[in-house]
C-alpha cells in the first residue's frame, strides 16, 4: 500500500495500525490558539493532521466547520499566514491542507495551481484535499503535486460508483477520503451502513481508506476501523470543542486539553477496532469454512 503516494510520511502513517486523522480550521478562533490546538491533536496521537485553509464559500461543509472557517477568516487567516502556520506549528504528524480550489488557483502571480503547491511543499505540507475539485478537472493540480511530492487526496461518497469511482481512484494518492454517509460534515452518533458498502466497493483499490464525516467518539472509530477502514478522519467533533471554548470563554489550555483527550479516545477506539479486525481475520484464516 504504502508506495502508492508521493509522501513517505503519509504512507508511513498508514503503515502499521490505523491512522487517526484529525481536522481543524487554521486560525480558529485565532492564530496562536489554533497553533496550541493543532499541537494538542499531535500529542493526542494524530497520525496525519488535516489543516483547513478557510475559503469564504465552503459549499461542502456542514454548519459546524462553516462556523470555524468564518471565525478564522474574521481573525485574518489568509493563504500566506496559513503557510507560515504550517511552518511554525510544532507537530510530528504530516500535514495535509484541506481547502477549496479557488484559493489554490488564485495563489501567486502565475495562473493555475502550481504556485500554491510549490509554496505548500516549502511549508512542509504533505498532501491536499480539495472538496470542490472533481477528478475531471484535477489534472493540473495532480501534476503540480507530483512535481513537488505532495499527495492529492480525493473524497469518495457512498454514491460514487462505476466509472466515476475509477476516474477518481486513478488520480488519488496518499489516501482516499471515504465519506461515511450522504450529507455534509457534522458530528453524528451512529455508524452508517453506507460506510460498510463503500469500503467493500473500495477493497480492490490499493490505497489506504480513511473514513470521515460524522465520527465523534472512540466507539464509532472502533466500529469503523473494525469494519475495514485504514484510518478515521474527524473534524466536526473537534471543531465543536473549539466552538464551545469560544462560547464558554475557556482558556486555550483547557480547550487544548479537551482536544487532546478526545484525540486519545478516538485513536484508542481506532486501535481497538484494528485489533478486533486482525483477530477476526486470524480466526477466519485458521477456521476456514
Amino acid at each position, binding site marked *: 500500500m504504502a508506495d502508492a503516494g508521493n509522501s513517505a510520511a503519509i504512507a508511513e502513517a498508514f503503515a502499521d495500525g490505523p491512522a487517526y486523522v484529525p481536522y481543524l480550521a487554521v486560525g480558529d478562533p485565532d492564530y496562536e490558539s489554533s497553533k496550541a490546538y493543532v499541537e494538542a491533536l499531535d500529542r493526542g496521537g494524530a497520525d496525519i493532521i488535516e489543516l483547513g485553509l478557510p475559503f469564504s464559500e465552503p*459549499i461542502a461543509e456542514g454548519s459546524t466547520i462553516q462556523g470555524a472557517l468564518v471565525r478564522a477568516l474574521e481573525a485574518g487567516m489568509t493563504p500566506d499566514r496559513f503557510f507560515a502556520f504550517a511552518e511554525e506549528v510544532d507537530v510530528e504528524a504530516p500535514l495535509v491542507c484541506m481547502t477549496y480550489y*479557488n484559493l489554490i488557483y488564485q495563489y501567486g502571480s502565475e495562473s493555475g495551481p502550481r504556485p500554491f503547491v510549490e509554496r505548500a511543499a516549502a511549508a512542509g505540507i504533505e498532501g491536499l484535499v480539495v472538496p470542490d475539485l472533481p477528478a475531471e478537472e484535477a489534472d493540473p493540480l495532480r501534476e503540480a503535486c507530483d512535481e513537488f511530492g505532495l499527495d492529492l487526496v480525493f473524497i469518495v461518497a457512498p454514491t460514487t460508483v462505476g466509472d466515476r469511482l475509477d476516474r477518481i481512484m486513478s488520480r488519488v494518492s496518499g489516501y482516499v477520503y471515504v465519506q461515511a454517509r*450522504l450529507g455534509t460534515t457534522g458530528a453524528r452518533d451512529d455508524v452508517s451502513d453506507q460506510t460498510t458498502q463503500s469500503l467493500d466497493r473500495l477493497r480492490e483499490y490499493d490505497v489506504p481508506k480513511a473514513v470521515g464525516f460524522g465520527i465523534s467518539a472512540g466507539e464509532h472509530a472502533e466500529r469503523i476501523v473494525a469494519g475495514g477502514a485504514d484510518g478515521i478522519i474527524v473534524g466536526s467533533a473537534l471543531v465543536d470543542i473549539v466552538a464551545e471554548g469560544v462560547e464558554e470563554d475557556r482558556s486555550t489550555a483547557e480547550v487544548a486539553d479537551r482536544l487532546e483527550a478526545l484525540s486519545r479516545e478516538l485513536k484508542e477506539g481506532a486501535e481497538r477496532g484494528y485489533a478486533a479486525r486482525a483477530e477476526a481475520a486470524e480466526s477466519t484464516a485458521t477456521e476456514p469454512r
Partner: protein
Amino acid sequence: MSETDTPTTDETERRRRPGRERGRDDGKFGRYGGQYVPEALMPAIEELTDAYERYVLGNEDGFIEEFRERLADFGGRPTPLQRADRLSERYDTEVFLKREDLLHGGAHKLNNALGQVLLAKYMGKERIIAETGAGQHGTATAMAAAHLDMPCTIYMGERDINRQRPNVFRMKLNGSEVKPVTAGRGTLKEAISETMRDWAATVEDTHYVIGSIVGPHPFPVMVRDFQAVISEEARAQSIEKAGGLPTDVVACAGGGSNTMGAFADFVDDESVALHAVEAGGSTLEVDEEAGVAPNSASLYTGDEGVLHGARTKLLQDSDGQIMESHSISSGLDYAGVGPELAYLVDEGRVNPVAVDDDAALEGFHRLSRTEGIIPALETAHALGFLEEHHEDLGERVVVNVSGRGDKDLDAAIEETDKRDIDEAPDMSMFTGGI
C-alpha cells in the same frame, strides 16, 4: 401563440446553431464552466445531465410540449414585445420592450423555475429545494412547485427574510416551507451553501432548482435553454413587428439568466449587438481590505475563478476570497456570473457594461413615469444603460424588462430619498417607507 408556433422549423434549426449548442455536450464555455462540486453531489449532477439531455434536448415523453404549454397557460407566454413610444422619441431610435414583467410572478424567473420543477417531475423526484436572496427565484419556484404539486423547501438567509417579508409570505401562501439560514451574515451566499448541504444529503429524491445560469453543468446550459424562450419570441416578434432583427439587445445581468435568455437566439446573428448591463453599485473601486466590492460588475471588472460549482468571472480579492458585492437591486447583488457570459465577453460577442445605482434609479423613475411600467430595480440598470449609451446604439433596440418593480417600492423610496432625481414624484409622504 402565433409567435412561437409559426417559426417552428426555423426554430428547430436555430436551436442547432453554434450559439444554441454551446456547452450542451460538456458544460464548457471555453475555459469557463465545469462541475466544481463535492463528490457527493456528482451523481445528482450526472443524473440531472442525463435528464437534461433526454427531456430538454431530446424531448423525451413530450417534455418540451408540456413545458411550453404550461409556460403559456400558467405563465402567460408569449409576453409582448412592445414599442416604447416615448423612449423611442427620447432616444431617436426604435426602442422595444420585451415584457417579462408580465410573466406570472412578475419576472422572467418562472421560465426557469417551471422548467426545472417539471423536469424534476419527469425524473421522478419527490421534493424541490431552492435558495433565494431577495425572494424572486424563491417565489417563482414556490409557484411552480404548487402548480405541479411538489413539496418545496426554500432556503433563505435570516437577514434576507427580515428584509423581504412579503416574498416570504408569498412563498408560504404557495405552500412552500421557508427555512431561515442563520449562518454567517444570513444572506444569499449562506443560503446557497445550506441548499447544497440539503441536496448533498437528499440527492436521491430531491431536485435543487438553481435560480440563474450559474452553478455546475448542466445548470448553466439548462437554465439558458429554459430562458431562451425570451429571445426566441423576441426574435420572431421583432421580425414580425419591426420588420427585421434588432440592432441591439440590452439586458441586465446578475447571475445572467434573463441576460442569456434574451441573448441566446441572437448569439449567432452577428449583426445584433448584445449588451449585458451589470450593477455598478456606488463605485467600481473595491475595498480589498474589507473584502467588499461596492458593485456587482463581475463581467466588467472580475477575474477568472471558481465559485459555486463553475469556473467563471468573479469578484474576489487577490487571495481568491469571494468579495461581498453590493447593488441597489438585490437581484443583481451576486459576486459571480454565468460562465457562458464570461466566455462571450472574452470572445467579444457580448459587451459588458456597468451602470451605477444613481443611473439605475433614474431609469426606474423614467420608465414608470413615461411608459406606465414600473420596472424591477434590476431591469432599471438596462434602462440606465439606454440613457447613457443610446448614441452608440443602432436603430432598433430591444430592452429586456426582466421584471416588475412592485417588489422594489420600499427600496425605491429609501434610495430616492437620498438623491435628487428629476423624474421622481414628490416623495414627502413616503419618507420612512410605505
